[in-house]
């Protein structure tokens, strides 16, 4: 049993996120992608994988995705079983030409995230999902008695 939780980075320990990214299943497209597998038939047309950046500060993890030209209503964010899935779907109509595409990406949410407080913002074509760390995961100093 762990009694003290300190900031893992200070100990040179690999953070959960990094550990998770090395996991063989990390970043696999969501199951929905396989069911809805147009992407398998027309690779590059639909179901493309969305690139992600993950940052961390002392209070939050931040996952950022590039979604140029997309509106709030084109983006769906789901948290299911510790897996955060971002999917985007867009239809474009331009005269006689009509096109559509979809993008998806799942990232595993590390332990110690306050899932109730996850928030997302879409600005200048960048979606940022903020995953606040739960209180007990934040670095703290322990007073000596």
């Amino acid at each position: 049993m762990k009694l003290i939780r300190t900031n893992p980075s200070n100990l040179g320990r690999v953070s959960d996120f990094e550990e998770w990214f090395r996991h063989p299943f990390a970043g696999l497209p969501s199951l929905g992608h396989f069911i809805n597998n147009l992407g398998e038939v027309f690779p590059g047309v639909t179901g493309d994988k969305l690139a992600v950046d993950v940052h961390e500060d002392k209070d939050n993890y931040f996952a950022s995705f590039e979604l140029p030209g997309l509106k709030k209503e084109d983006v769906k964010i789901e948290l299911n079983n510790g897996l955060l899935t971002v999917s985007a779907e867009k239809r474009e109509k331009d005269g006689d030409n009509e096109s559509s595409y979809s993008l998806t990406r799942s990232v595993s949410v590390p332990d110690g995230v306050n899932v109730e407080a996850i928030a997302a913002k879409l600005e200048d074509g960048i979606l940022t999902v903020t995953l606040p760390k739960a209180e007990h995961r934040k670095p703290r100093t322990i007073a000596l008695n």
Partner: protein
Amino acid sequence: MNTTCSPRISAPATSGVTESLRKPLYNVNGNAEAYEVRVEMPGVPKSGVKLDLEDNILTVRGERNTTVPEGMKALHRELSPLSYLLRLRLNTPVEEDKMTAKLEDGVLTLRLPLKEVAKPRQIPVL
């Protein structure tokens, strides 16, 4: 996506550009009145867009806001932090003063109205 790329707008070879920039995805549409150029530049705020038209070369620059707030560290990176540079050669005279640009959701849309001389016209048969 519409890829009707007008043969009259082409990307000149970038020579002597040593800055670390990348070419954004773009799309050109044209009709009898104007060209419409859509450039994908996620992460670029309005203040980061610079447009320039000189010697028939349209230059679009988009500076990304790459300052990482203090105390934040990257755990995993896939997105490129590089700013964007797109140079397009216009072989058709356009109304420079009537050019419009709009940045919305990380997509820059430029409208380049054609000059009268460049518009198609009907020639009546006598």
